[in-house]
């Protein structure tokens, strides 16, 4: 009888040649690498770029602003990847949602209207993704790849690639540009979503069932987990959060635009994996994801401040990602 074994085999992949003996312990170190690497990166830039203003509050808050959308989509993507699925459509959803929200605001639907339309855009796409994946049983990679094109096309088509300015100052304040005291509103949103995401994943039955679905779908099903429902919901969540990220892009840029979020799917997935969530499902950490996102953001920021050429930035960034993981890997193996 076909049972849990699909996922079980995948678990095997977590372990690797070197620590073959310590099978499955593969999971542990990943949980910490990203924290170590992140702290390492911060310390390094703080020392070398102290005089260049890296360690100023305003620069650190900038990093928080710049990573907010990736972090927030990353929180939702953590759930998707924890079930062993993937969502490639998030980047294009942010673009479309920024535009629909901007158009709604322009049409005078007001703050709530704009927000509802933007979030609704993400929600609807998430629902369609979820249905195709669970009901028609098409692999999520293909569904969301197709959807990525469809949504991007719609975003280009809806205003014929023209950006739509947003003059609604409350909207712009709440979704991107505002500060509460000296705390950027984007940081507040990131914290709120992170905390909610973390609690859902670690403290609720839904979170537990998400991990169970990814850990071994058949076993979860036998145990009474409605794995299809779980999968459906994580895609809805991912769509919704991408829509929310679209609002944040719109608020930050005072406009909707079809190129927002271009390529974000890869950054989001990278943050999730760097954070320690397994691409094969069953293991996930929201906090890790956000730290992963912050780490990438910090590297981007530090290398620019360092004054490197673009090509040098790319090389060094790639090296840091690999070395950080390799270093953490070595350190923790002992």
């Amino acid at each position, binding site marked *: 009888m*076909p*049972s849990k074994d699909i996922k079980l085999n995948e678990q095997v992949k977590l372990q690797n040649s070197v620590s073959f*003996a310590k099978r499955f312990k593969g999971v542990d170190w990943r949980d910490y690498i990203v924290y170590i690497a992140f702290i390492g990166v911060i310390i390094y830039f703080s020392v070398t770029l102290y005089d260049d203003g890296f360690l100023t509050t305003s620069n650190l808050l900038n990093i928080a602003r710049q990573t907010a959308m990736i972090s927030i989509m990353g929180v939702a993507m953590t759930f998707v990847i924890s079930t062993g699925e993937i969502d490639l459509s998030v980047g294009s959803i942010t673009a479309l949602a920024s535009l629909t929200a901007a158009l709604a605001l322009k049409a005078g639907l007001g703050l709530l209207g704009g927000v509802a339309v933007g979030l609704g855009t993400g929600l609807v796409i998430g629902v369609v993704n979820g249905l195709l994946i669970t009901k028609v049983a098409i692999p999520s990679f293909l569904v969301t790849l197709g959807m990525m094109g469809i949504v991007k096309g719609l975003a280009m088509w809806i205003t014929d690639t023209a950006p739509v300015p947003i003059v609604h100052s409350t909207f712009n304040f709440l979704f991107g540009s505002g500060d509460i005291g000296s705390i950027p509103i984007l940081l507040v949103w990131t914290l709120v979503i992170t905390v909610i995401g973390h609690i859902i994943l670690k403290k*609720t039955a839904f979170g537990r069932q998400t991990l169970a679905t990814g850990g071994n779908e058949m076993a979860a099903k036998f145990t009474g987990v409605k794995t299809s429902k779980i999968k459906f919901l994580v895609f809805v969540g991912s769509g919704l959060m991408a829509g929310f990220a679209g609002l944040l892009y719109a608020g930050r840029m005072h406009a909707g635009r079809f190129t927002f979020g271009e390529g974000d799917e890869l950054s989001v997935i990278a943050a999730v994996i760097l954070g320690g969530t397994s691409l094969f499902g069953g293991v996930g950490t929201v906090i890790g994801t956000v730290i992963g996102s912050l780490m990438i953001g910090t590297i981007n920021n530090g290398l620019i401040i360092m004054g490197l050429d673009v090509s040098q930035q790319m090389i060094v960034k790639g090296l840091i990602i690999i070395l950080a993981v390799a270093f953490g890997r070595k350190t923790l193996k002992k």
Partner: protein
Amino acid sequence: MQQPLLSMEGISKSFNGIKVLDSVNFSLHKGEVHALMGGNGAGKSTLMKILTGVYTADEGEIFIEGKKVSINNTEDAKRNYISMIFQEFSLVPTLTVAQNIFLTREPKNSIGFLNEKLCNEKTKELLKELEVDVEPTDVIANLGVGYWQMTEIAKALSQNTKILIMDEPTSSLTKKETEVLFDIIHKLKEKGISIIYISHRMDEIFQICDRITVLRDGKKITTENCDEISMETVIQHIVGADLDKAFEWKERVYSTEGTPVLEVKNLASGTKVKNISFRLYPGEILGVAGLMGSGRSEMVRAIFGIDPIDGGEIFVKGKKCTIKDPVDAINVGIALIPEDRRMQGLILQHSVKENIILPILSKIKRGIFLDNRKANDIAETFVKTLNIKTDDIFKTVRLLSGGNQQKIVLAKWLANNPDILVLDEPTIGVDIGAKTEIMDIIRKLADSGKAVLVISSELQELLAVSDRIIVVHGGEVVKELKRKEIHSEEVLQHAIQGH
């Protein structure tokens, strides 16, 4: 006669047009332990999966307390207080023991969040009752098969159940744990819980069961009261023919004079293997006995190059070997049939044939290409020799019954024709007929001059084949017994528990 608690009537089920259940009737009384017996692939697991809503029957009806019920999914089964200990384990390897046991039934605190602490406490109690020493917070994937099984059992027991199905619950358990389980079964029985018990271990059946139903090739052969039927008759029903006395030990002749084919000196590996020494001679069958967790599996893992060796030496045919990788072990003629067939033995989404030929790819090449005809021939031969029940050699291994999967692991290593065959619990889940076949194969191999090392927790089986038995405890060989000197199972049992 009282109305049965459960009755399944005229159940039929086909897969890919092949009938695996044919109008089967089955009934269960309150407080009864009812054994469901039959060869590998007879349809036992399938019948029970129909009862638990994993599959739906093509034909037939299910009645509970006389009322017709329809069980279309696992929730329907739960609603009818039916729960099952699965043969393939319904555990999520990435979650902890406690998280698995309470999956979908997690204790929650006042605001609806998971109460991990309570969950762990409850688990601890359950595990204590079962006398298993694992922590509730251990991640399943890090545990061995035996613990998986205990977790499965704990999971089923923790549920509010009227009908408990146990599909080979003891297959990876040792005597001690099996006894704990039987105690629990007695207690459950007293509480009025009914149990359907599937096992290939004859002695257990007669120890705890009230009635027996035998299936063969998807048909019900008979249902009898346990005290009105003999073991021989049951075996005859299962196999469909008489079995020769496979479990009888016969003294074999071989020489312990020359160089041992395998000699292990002061082997240490990890925390479990501390100091293991033994010799294995050509033509010899050496049994390894010990408790669960005694380090037997780790010992052979180290010998086979899976776990790193921390100390000691290995000699093959007198030559000192460094074995750092299974490939090294295979190259010096060692084969290991691992304990956990799913994780270590099989590629489940590949076919029977592909699994069988995996270790011998280099031997069936024609030029640089694989010789497909030869591959098919070899696979066909082993399917026949080991009597593997499959539609054809192209069937996905995942779809075979538990016992037949185990036979494929055996087949793939026999195909490689090793000098030293190491078997870790080779008969887990294998039916009585196949068991005797496997024992025959082991004997024949040894007769042809090969050396065999067998780890088994089934003492009867160990006693039936071994020429010599070493007892492992705490990672050391604590006793070595000549088979001749062992006059009863109790002697061996005592040696194992003796520390």
